[in-house]
């Protein structure tokens, strides 16, 4: 049996500064929590402790200790940091225990042939956790609790060979065991301060005085307890969150924050060999009531939450692609107020594995195409007056209604199954919307046509061809008489499709045969 433990030092501080380990190591930092009127220090780093900051101090007391970087506790940040720590563990083994915030125990049994000796595994764990942005202690031992206590009590990497648990744990202070207050007090009176002295106590008198609990702690101090891990549940979603000290009202700085969050998400997805095809961005806005007085958009009409969603035709792990798409989306629909909290969630999907052929025809790269479509939408607009997309892949609808089609995103249109015939089909060039026209009739047949700035004599006409539909739908009914007219336009010939709307009696030019 082999177990590894990852222990993140001063976890609440690291979570608040997640992704910035250099700040954790170099600055005097502490985390405060509680009601606004009585904020107290709940965690601080080693530099802060050296500066005199202690847990339980009020914010004012902590500030008096010098230039202390005080961060307010955000539970979501701690959750996402814990998820990142778990992901770090999942890179080594699927059997994990989320023992406590900032502490993860990994079952490494049987991984020796894959990852090497216990010492090599420990080195790899340390490097990997540091690459994930954590400052950690690592311990590798034959049982989970020995690994846990060694990681809590010893700096850097500790490898305990089987049989040497009691000897190696002996020097650790008794506080590492996280004993109940009353037992700690009793042991203090007995002069027991470290693991070694606790392990040396006779078992029967210890049980008589402290009960089974005392015996259990002694066995822990000896490193004798074998137990099964409580497997950690997979996180329901890949979510990253950050709360800003000052609200951001420009898209450029927001882009930097989104980039950091996306890179963390993509890292976690890559660790599990997953990708994403659906990203959801939730922005909590700071809405001020006084904006109403300044004549800007009334605060009452601004919703404090803003949501943007990205759906891709193929899963991706590329943070840059997603960042560009989010930036384009936000520039097209910017938030109405400064952003205070940013939550980014990626819905995992399996990577699409495809073997490209040597003679495969040229095709746009799906992720790059998605960015191109978003950029095109920014130029020509997203939708027309009828709610149809302006950029995409066309598909005709199963309807006889003229000009019925939809424009779909990439990958949504089924491939063509018909055959391309040799002869070329006459195409219609549409006027969208149809042009209003004036028609001169002679014996019920159009003789002259005027539209836009043109007035032309009809040389030959074919029709009328009556088309009707949706008669069962009072609002959507359409009926019209279509004509194919051959016009003489200053000596040149034009073939036009003209129709009379039977509901209004109005004539229109629908298009030109070209």
């Amino acid at each position, binding site marked *: 049996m082999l177990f590894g433990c990852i222990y993140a030092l001063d976890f609440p501080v690291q979570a608040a500064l997640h992704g910035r380990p250099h700040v954790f190591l170099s600055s005097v930092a502490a985390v405060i929590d509680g009601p606004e009127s009585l904020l107290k220090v709940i965690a601080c780093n080693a530099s802060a402790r050296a500066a005199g900051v202690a847990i339980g101090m009020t914010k004012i007391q902590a500030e008096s200790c010098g230039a202390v970087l005080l961060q307010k506790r955000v539970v979501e940040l701690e959750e996402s940091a814990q998820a990142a720590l778990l992901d770090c563990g999942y890179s080594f083994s699927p059997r994990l225990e989320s023992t406590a915030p900032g502490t993860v125990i990994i079952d490494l049994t049987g991984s020796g042939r894959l990852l090497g000796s216990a010492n090599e595994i420990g080195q790899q764990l340390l490097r990997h956790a540091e690459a994930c942005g954590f400052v950690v202690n690592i311990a590798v031992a034959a049982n989970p609790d020995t690994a846990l206590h060694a990681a809590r009590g010893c700096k850097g990497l500790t490898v305990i060979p089987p049989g040497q648990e009691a000897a190696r744990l002996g020097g650790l202070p008794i506080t590492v065991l996280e004993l109940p207050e009353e037992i700690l007090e009793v042991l203090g009176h007995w002069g027991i301060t470290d693991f070694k002295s606790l392990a040396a106590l006779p078992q029967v008198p210890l049980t008589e005085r402290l009960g089974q609990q005392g015996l259990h702690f002694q066995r822990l101090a000896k490193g004798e307890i074998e137990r099964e891990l409580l497997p950690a549940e997979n996180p329901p979603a890949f979510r990253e969150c950050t709360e800003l000290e000052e609200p951001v009202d420009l898209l450029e700085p927001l882009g930097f924050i989104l980039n950091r969050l996306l890179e963390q998400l993509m890292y976690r997805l890559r660790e599990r060999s997953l990708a994403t095809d659906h990203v959801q961005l939730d922005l909590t806005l700071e809405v001020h009531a006084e904006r109403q007085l300044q004549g800007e958009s009334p605060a009452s009409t601004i919703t404090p939450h803003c949501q943007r969603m990205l759906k891709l035709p193929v899963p991706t792990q590329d943070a840059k692609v997603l960042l560009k798409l989010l930036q384009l989306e936000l520039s097209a629909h910017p938030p109405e107020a400064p952003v205070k909290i940013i939550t980014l969630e990626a819905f995992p999907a399996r990577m699409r594995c495809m073997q490209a052929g040597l003679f495969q025809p040229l095709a746009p790269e799906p992720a790059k195409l998605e960015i191109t479509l978003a950029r095109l939408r920014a*130029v*020509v607009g997203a939708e027309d007056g009828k709610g149809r997309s302006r950029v995409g892949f066309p*598909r*005709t609808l199963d309807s006889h209604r003229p000009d019925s089609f939809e424009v779909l995103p990439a990958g949504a249109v089924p491939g063509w199954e018909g055959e391309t015939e040799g002869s*070329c*089909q006459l195409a219609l060039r549409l006027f969208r919307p149809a042009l209003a026209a004036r028609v001169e009739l002679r014996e019920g047949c159009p003789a002259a046509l005027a539209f836009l700035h043109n007035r032309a004599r009809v040389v030959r006409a074919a029709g009328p061809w009556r088309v009707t539909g949706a008669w069962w739908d009072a609002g959507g009914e359409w009926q019209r008489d279509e004509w194919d007219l*051959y016009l003489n336009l200053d000596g040149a010939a034009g073939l036009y499709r003209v129709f009379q709307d039977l509901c209004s009696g109005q004539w229109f030019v629908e298009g030109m045969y070209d």
Partner: protein
Amino acid sequence: MASIAIIRSQVESRLPGALSPYILPAPEMLFTGVAAVDRKTGGIPKNALTQICASPEVSSGKTTLLLSLMAAVTAREEFCALVDASDSFDPASAEAAGVDGARMLWVRCEHKSGLRSMEQAFKAADIIVQNGGFGLIAVDLGNIEERTVRKIPLSTWFRFARVVEKMPAALVFLLSHPAAQNCAALTLYLSGAGACWQGSGKASHAQLLSGVECQVEIGRTRLRKPVQSAPARFSAISMWA
């Protein structure tokens, strides 16, 4: 002469190939699917700019030719893009012509005419060219007035021609007049040569439009010399004929 040779050798030692002539490789050709046009032109060149010119008010077969070309490209399982400056593309006609909608990117400009529409079309074309991966990029400026198209600086056409030179894509512009001038590797002029009807008698309901006769002429080509000036004809047949 000796001094010229020395200068030449000095230049070539610093910039290899600077004084050797730049020879363009023979471009790959895309067949349009219209036999008469393919016979006359040898196809539409890839890595080059082509302009198809026709009067906007006359049924000349320019849209038919473009759809046929797009159908041929999508039949090769390549992707094509259409930047539609006047939003005049008819998906039903394209489907009848055999264009695979799943391989055709359609960009519908917001403004139907004028300078703004043309500006959007050029921006969109630029984005698509940058993306790459398309075998054919068509820009339909056929309904834009000639005086508006004339405002496009020659440098724009030159830039597009140079960019597409290095890409395995054909860039085709539908225009009312040959605005790209000598930046285009191939210029085609299309005109109508009459309509074909079925049915007899004077009654309009007994008549049926069966197609359009079109005429194509090469205005300029870099690919096939000498230029054949005699026009060729082709028929575009209506869906119901």
